[in-house]
């Protein structure tokens, strides 16, 4: 019997080609919009989480609070304090290092400017003064050479480590180890090249996190203030204690500093911030999806109401030969589902194509997978069921004699 329903529905779909095309296009646009937006949203979500995750889930960041409370740029996965005045001191570093669950703490001071090697020059995305514990805290792996040692931190000629992109920009294929580069008129000796930390491209650009230079505290030593930092990163021995450690750091620093002068954050905090934005984007996508599917559904309902009206006499003939109201209802509902499924398939196909094109031409990398394809087809079925019921009931409830007397076939 089901095969006969399918056959009857297919004949109905085939016999009104223009109406079918309009209905299928309507629903396909709705599904296309929903799936492609979800794919873009999912891609953005993954990208943000990957970027945030570069700092590590077992690291707490303590930053000096900016004067205007603005959050600075995300550099190497670290949310910086923007234009904040660095106020974190070696005392703060000692306080944090004394926390029982902190296995290591390293300071950071963000610097600006260019570095040169001969006549070659680059402007690092991430030029920072730190200490020898940095590679341990940030899980930095070395591609060449090594990180500077504790002893080397006090060398007259500072030893530095550069990122892979900086190496390419300044040295090309040349071996950089032992070579001198200059920064603000000072010579710095390259002792290592850090492995990639998550750049998406080898080209030098504003977002290339591997265009980096890590130098010792002496890079920023100031005769009046000693060394001050804009951030301290603390690595936790056990991730389960991260929350209590964060509270403990806040409490101990607040004993001698104004609580407003620093900000303690975990990766969870950063993810939460990103998640809030993503949740808003998701809500926006959901609203767009509901609206577009509703419009598509109304379009389908309109098409099916016209189909039922056009085929009133057919309904009468079918009832004459023994069709029950249920038979008629199922036939028209299947016909609606057939239209919405065709629209769903077309919409998913368009979305897959759009994702492919967007991946090729833009930095956004939308993600589409089997579950989104399933969602698209599932939504098309749901739309068909919701908006097909009304017209199908209308067809089922027609009295046979009245249906036969209509002049429509």
């Amino acid at each position, binding site marked *: *019997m089901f*095969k*006969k329903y399918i*056959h*009857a529905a297919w*004949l*109905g779909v085939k*016999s009104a080609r223009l109406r079918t095309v309009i209905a299928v296009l309507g629903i396909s646009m709705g599904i296309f919009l929903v799936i492609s937006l979800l794919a873009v949203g999912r891609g953005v979500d993954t990208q943000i989480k990957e970027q945030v995750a570069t700092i590590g889930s077992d690291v707490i960041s303590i930053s000096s609070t900016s004067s205007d409370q603005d959050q600075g740029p995300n550099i190497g996965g670290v949310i910086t304090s923007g234009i904040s005045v660095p106020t974190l001191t070696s005392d703060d570093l000692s306080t944090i290092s004394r926390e029982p669950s902190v296995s290591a703490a390293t300071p950071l001071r963000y610097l600006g400017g260019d570095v040169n090697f001969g006549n070659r020059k680059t402007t690092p995305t991430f030029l920072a003064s730190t200490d020898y514990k940095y590679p341990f805290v940030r899980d930095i792996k070395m591609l060449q050479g090594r990180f500077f040692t504790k002893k080397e931190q006090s060398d007259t000629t500072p030893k530095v480590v550069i990122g892979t992109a900086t190496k390419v920009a300044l040295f090309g294929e040349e071996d950089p180890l032992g070579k001198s580069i200059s920064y603000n008129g000072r010579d710095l000796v390259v002792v290592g090249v850090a492995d990639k930390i998550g750049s998406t491209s080898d080209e030098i650009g504003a977002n290339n996190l591997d265009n980096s230079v890590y130098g010792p505290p002496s890079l920023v030593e100031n005769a009046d203030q000693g060394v001050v930092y804009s951030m301290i990163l603390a690595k936790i021995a056990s991730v389960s204690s991260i929350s209590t450690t964060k509270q403990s750091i806040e409490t101990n620093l607040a004993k001698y500093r104004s609580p407003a002068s620093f900000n303690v954050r975990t990766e969870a905090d950063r993810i939460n911030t990103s998640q809030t934005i993503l949740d808003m984007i998701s809500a926006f996508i959901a609203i767009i999806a509901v609206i577009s599917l509703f419009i598509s559904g109304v379009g389908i309902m309109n098409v099916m109401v016209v189909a039922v009206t056009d085929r009133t*006499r*057919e309904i*009468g*003939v*079918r*009832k*004459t*030969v*023994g*069709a*029950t*109201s*249920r*038979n008629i209802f199922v036939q028209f509902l299947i016909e609606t589902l057939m239209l919405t499924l065709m629209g769903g398939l077309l919409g998913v196909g368009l979305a897959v194509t759009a994702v492919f094109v967007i991946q090729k031409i833009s930095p956004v990398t939308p993600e589409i997978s089997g579950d989104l394809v399933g969602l698209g087809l599932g939504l098309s079925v749901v739309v068909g069921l919701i908006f097909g019921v009304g017209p199908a009931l209308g067809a089922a409830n027609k009295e*046979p*004699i009245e249906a*036969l007397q209509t002049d429509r*076939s």
Partner: protein
Amino acid sequence: MGELNSTNQTTSVLSPVFSQPGALRLELVSRSFTVSDNLVEALKGVNLSISSGEFVAIMGYSGSGKSTTLNILGLLDRPTAGAYFIGDILTNDLSQSERARLRKDKFGFIFQNFNLLDRYTVLQNIELAMVYQRVSGAASRRLALDLLSQLGLSGKANARPHQLSGGQAQRVAIARALINNPPIILADEPTGNLDETAAHEVVGLLKTLSARGTTVVMVTHSPEIAQYASRTVFMKSGSVVGIKGSDV
């Protein structure tokens, strides 16, 4: 078409065998409608009994109630008063699905305007009557093709109804009515849109079916066509005003 004119022809489809005769009985049946706040009485206390295998013609002027009678007999309409029996079954209180099942099992319908669906081929129009039977697609196709062959329409299986002559279209409609082998055929002005030759061919076929045991009830304007029936019921203003022929 010549093969159909012979009442001696014996084929499986045209020779139905019934375990239960298709007897119909109307008892004081009335049917009224409200049209623009006015009550229109289409039938007024009609009594009519039709035996299994009988060929009955119903005659009368337009508005006499003959088509309404046929619609009630075919369970396409319900009486507003009185009782209608098919065999021993009182149909008044049957549900929609029970009425649909009876229509499927008991009746074949033939209409003046054929009621063929242009979006379907001739073959598909005939198969339409088997969609709701538990018969496989292949079996229903074979039956439909056999019937088309018997009706002299083998070459028209894939034609559309609008490509047929009136006589051919009515023969297709008859094929649709016969394919389920129903015990009762209800024909509403089956010759109304046909030329004289085709009209006599169609009514001759109905006569043949009646001779094989099928109950045939035919509404007609034409006394000449009504002569094929064993009994003619005359109606006027919603009432039976006379009966000609053997009264059962």
